[in-house]
C-alpha cells in the first residue's frame, strides 16, 4: 500500500488539474492593446462575463447602488440591473438575451451588453467566439456599406428608398418582375429578405452585393434617381409603366426647389389596413373616417391654396408611423397635418382637440431619422463632422417648429370650435409618435369623438365632413397667410386706409421659381 500511495496522490492531482483546466470559468479578452484573461460562467447555455473585469480592462469603472450597476467608460454611462434583460444608455435600450447574474457579489453580463454599450458609446464592436473562448472588442469595421430600405406608397407610386451609409457605385438592372441594384462595394444588410405590404413592391432580397426588389406584377416599373447627404437611391415604382429589360440609365435627382412659404402640404389620414383605430358604437372605423375627410381636404387645399398636397395613404393600407413622418420629410413639406377621430371612456365626451408635439418628446433618434429622410439644403451646408453644431441647430429648428406648430394648432382649433360648438377641449401638447422627427410645423387634429354616438353619426355624414374640410382649409389658409407675412414673403396689409381713393388691395408676392423647376415645384408659382 505504501508503494502505491505516491502514485495515487499523483493520479488524484492530475485528475484535479484536468478538471480545473476544463472548468468553464476563464476566457480571453482580446483588445487592441493585447489579450487579458477574463472570468466567465455559463448559465442556461448563455455565456456571461465578469462586468468589472471587462470594464476595468477598457479603462472604465463600475459602481453598485440600491437598484443595480452603473458602468462608466470615458464620458458614457450605462446601467443594468440583475432582474432586467434591458440595460439603458441615454434614452436607448441595450437588449440582452438574459438578465445579468450576480455571483459572489460580482455582476456577470452577456456579451450583448458590451456590444450595445460600446457600439453607441465608442464606435467599437464586440465579438464572441465560443469555440476559442475569445471575446474581442475592437473598433467597428466600416469597410462594408450599410444599407436600409423603406417603401412608402404615395398616391399609387411606391417610393422605394435605399439609404446607404456611404456613397458607392451601383447599377440598376430591370429584370422580369424585379429590379436588381448591384453595388460595387460590399454591403451590410440588416436582413436577408424583407416583405412589404405594398401594392407594387412584394419584397426586397439581399444576396452578395445585389439588392433585388421583387415587384408584385410584371407591369410595375418606374424611374430611379439618387440623392446625397445621406446617399440614397430612390425608385418611384408604379403600375402600368413600361420599362425595357436591362440596365436602367440614371436620371437626374429631383430636388425640390427651396422657396420660402408654404407650398407643399402633407396630409396624413390616421391609421389604415389592419390598424383600424377607434371604432364607434355604430361600427364606424376611425381609419375609414380619416381617409374620407383627408381625400376631400387634399382636393380642397390643392384647389384653394394651389399647393402641392401629398397624402400619406390614399387607400386602406398600413403605413407605419415613422413612414408617415418620413414622407413629409422626403417631400420637404412645409406643413404636416395628421387627421384622427378621438375616443374616450367618459360617456358624452365631445368636441375637437388639436395637438402639437410636447417640448421634451423630440430626441436624438428622431434627429438622426430626420437627417436621413430630409437632407435639406440647410443641413447640407453644415461642415461634415460638426455634430455639436448640428445638434444645436436641430434643437433651434425644433423650437421654431414647435412655436409654428402651436400657431397652426391654434388656427385649426379656432375654426373647429365653430364647427362642433364645443370650445372646452382646445389645443394640447402630447408626445405623438407621428409628430416626432417632422422637420416642419406639424399638428394632429382630433375632429370629433367617434365613441360618442351623436358625433359618430356626424362624422359618417358627407355634410359634416364637408363642413370640417372647409374649416380645416380655412385654418391652413389663415395660418399660411400669417406665416408668410411673418417671414416676409407676403407684405403685411396696410394698417388703415388713409383715404378710400388711395387704398390698394394687399398683393401676394411670391418668389419666382428657378428655371429648373420640376412638375411638383411648378405648382408652387401659382400661390
Amino acid at each position, binding site marked *: 500500500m505504501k508503494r502505491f500511495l505516491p502514485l495515487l496522490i499523483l493520479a488524484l492531482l492530475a*485528475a*484535479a488539474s484536468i478538471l480545473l483546466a476544463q472548468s468553464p470559468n476563464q476566457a480571453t479578452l482580446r483588445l487592441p492593446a493585447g489579450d487579458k484573461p477574463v472570468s466567465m460562467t455559463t448559465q442556461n447555455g448563455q455565456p456571461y462575463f465578469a462586468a468589472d473585469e471587462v470594464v476595468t480592462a477598457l479603462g472604465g469603472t463600475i459602481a453598485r447602488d*440600491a437598484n443595480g450597476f452603473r458602468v462608466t467608460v470615458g464620458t458614457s454611462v450605462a*446601467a443594468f440591473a440583475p432582474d432586467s434583460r434591458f440595460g439603458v444608455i441615454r434614452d436607448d435600450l441595450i437588449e440582452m438575451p438574459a438578465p445579468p447574474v450576480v455571483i459572489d457579489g460580482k455582476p456577470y453580463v452577456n456579451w450583448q451588453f458590451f456590444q450595445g454599450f460600446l457600439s453607441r458609446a465608442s464606435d467599437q464592436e464586440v465579438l464572441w467566439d465560443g469555440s476559442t473562448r475569445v471575446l474581442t472588442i475592437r473598433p467597428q469595421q466600416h469597410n462594408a456599406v450599410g444599407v436600409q430600405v423603406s417603401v412608402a406608397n404615395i398616391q399609387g407610386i411606391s417610393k422605394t428608398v435605399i439609404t446607404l451609409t456611404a456613397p458607392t457605385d451601383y447599377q440598376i438592372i430591370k429584370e422580369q418582375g424585379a429590379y436588381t441594384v448591384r453595388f460595387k462595394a460590399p454591403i451590410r444588410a440588416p436582413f436577408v429578405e424583407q416583405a412589404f405590404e405594398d401594392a407594387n413592391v412584394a419584397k426586397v432580397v439581399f444576396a452578395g452585393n445585389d439588392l433585388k426588389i421583387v415587384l408584385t406584377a410584371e407591369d410595375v416599373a418606374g424611374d430611379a434617381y439618387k440623392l446625397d447627404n445621406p446617399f440614397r437611391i430612390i425608385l418611384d415604382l408604379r403600375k402600368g409603366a413600361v420599362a425595357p429589360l436591362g440596365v436602367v440609365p440614371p436620371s437626374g435627382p429631383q430636388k425640390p426647389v427651396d422657396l420660402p412659404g408654404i407650398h407643399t402640404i402633407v396630409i396624413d389620414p390616421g391609421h389604415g389596413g389592419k390598424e383600424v383605430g377607434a371604432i364607434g358604437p355604430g361600427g364606424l372605423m376611425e381609419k375609414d373616417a380619416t381617409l374620407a375627410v383627408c381625400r376631400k381636404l387634399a382636393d380642397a387645399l390643392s384647389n384653394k391654396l394651389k399647393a402641392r398636397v401629398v397624402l400619406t395613404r390614399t387607400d386602406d393600407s398600413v403605413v407605419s408611423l415613422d413612414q408617415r413622418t418620413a414622407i413629409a420629410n422626403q417631400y420637404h413639406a412645409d406643413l404636416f397635418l395628421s387627421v384622427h377621430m378621438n375616443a374616450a371612456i367618459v360617456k358624452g365626451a365631445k368636441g375637437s382637440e388639436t395637438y402639437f408635439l410636447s417640448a421634451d418628446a423630440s430626441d436624438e433618434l428622431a434627429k438622426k431619422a430626420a437627417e436621413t429622410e430630409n437632407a435639406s439644403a440647410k443641413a447640407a451646408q453644415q461642415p461634415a463632422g460638426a455634430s455639436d453644431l448640428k445638434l444645436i441647430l436641430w434643437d433651434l429648428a425644433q423650437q421654431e417648429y414647435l412655436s409654428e406648430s402651436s400657431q397652426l394648432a391654434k388656427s385649426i382649433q379656432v375654426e373647429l370650435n365653430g364647427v362642433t360648438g364645443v370650445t372646452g377641449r382646445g389645443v394640447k401638447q402630447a408626445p*405623438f409618435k407621428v409628430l416626432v422627427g417632422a422637420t416642419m410645423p406639424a399638428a394632429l387634429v*382630433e375632429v370629433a369623438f367617434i365613441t360618442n354616438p351623436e358625433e359618430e353619426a356626424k362624422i359618417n355624414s358627407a355634410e359634416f365632413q364637408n363642413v370640417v374640410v372647409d374649416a380645416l382649409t380655412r385654418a391652413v389658409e389663415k395660418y399660411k397667410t400669417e406665416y408668410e407675412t411673418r417671414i416676409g414673403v407676403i407684405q403685411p396689409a396696410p394698417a388703415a386706409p388713409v383715404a378710400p381713393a388711395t387704398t390698394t388691395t394687399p398683393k401676394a408676392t411670391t418668389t419666382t421659381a428657378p428655371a429648373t423647376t420640376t412638375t411638383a415645384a411648378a405648382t408652387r408659382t401659382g400661390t
Partner: protein
Amino acid sequence: MRKTAVVVLLLALVAGACKKKQLSTNLNVENKVAVRSVTLYFEAPDMLLAAETRNVALPENHAGAMSAVVRELFKGSANTSIPRIFPGDTVVRGAYLLPDGTAFVDLGGATLTNGWGTGSHEELMATYSVVQTITTNFPETKRVRILINGTPAETLAGHINIGRALTPNAAYVR
C-alpha cells in the same frame, strides 16, 4: 489511519476545487410584504387623471412592488361608475427600476399584443395613468418606459410614443 486521512483530505480538496460556485441573484431575495397606502390614477369624468388612494400589500423589493401597484391600477377605480382605461385582458408581465431612475413596466395581453383600437385621448390617459402612478408611489423613479411583451413598442394604440421613457405631465392630471 494517517494514510486514509491524507486520501480523504485530498479528495475533499479536489471536490472543493470542482464545486460549482453558488449563485445568489438579488432578484426577489427577500419577499417580505408590508401594507402600504398607494395612490392610483384613474380618468375622472372631467377627462383628467384623478388620484385615488387605497391600502395594498406590497413586497419590499422594487420589482415586485411596482408590478403589484400596476396590477392594482388595472383593477380599476373603487368608484364603479368610472370605467377602466386599459383593455380588460391587459396583464403586467413585470416591472423593474434601473439605477438611473428609469422604471420599466412590461405589459402584455391579447389586445395590446394584437393591436388596441382606440383613440388618442383614451391612449393618452392609459399611458399616463401608469406613468403618474409609478412616479408617485416610487419617488426614486424619474421616468417610466413601457414595454409590450418584454420588447420595446412604438405606441399602445397608434398615437402616444412609448418608444422612450416618459416623465409625468401635470397637464393631464386634475
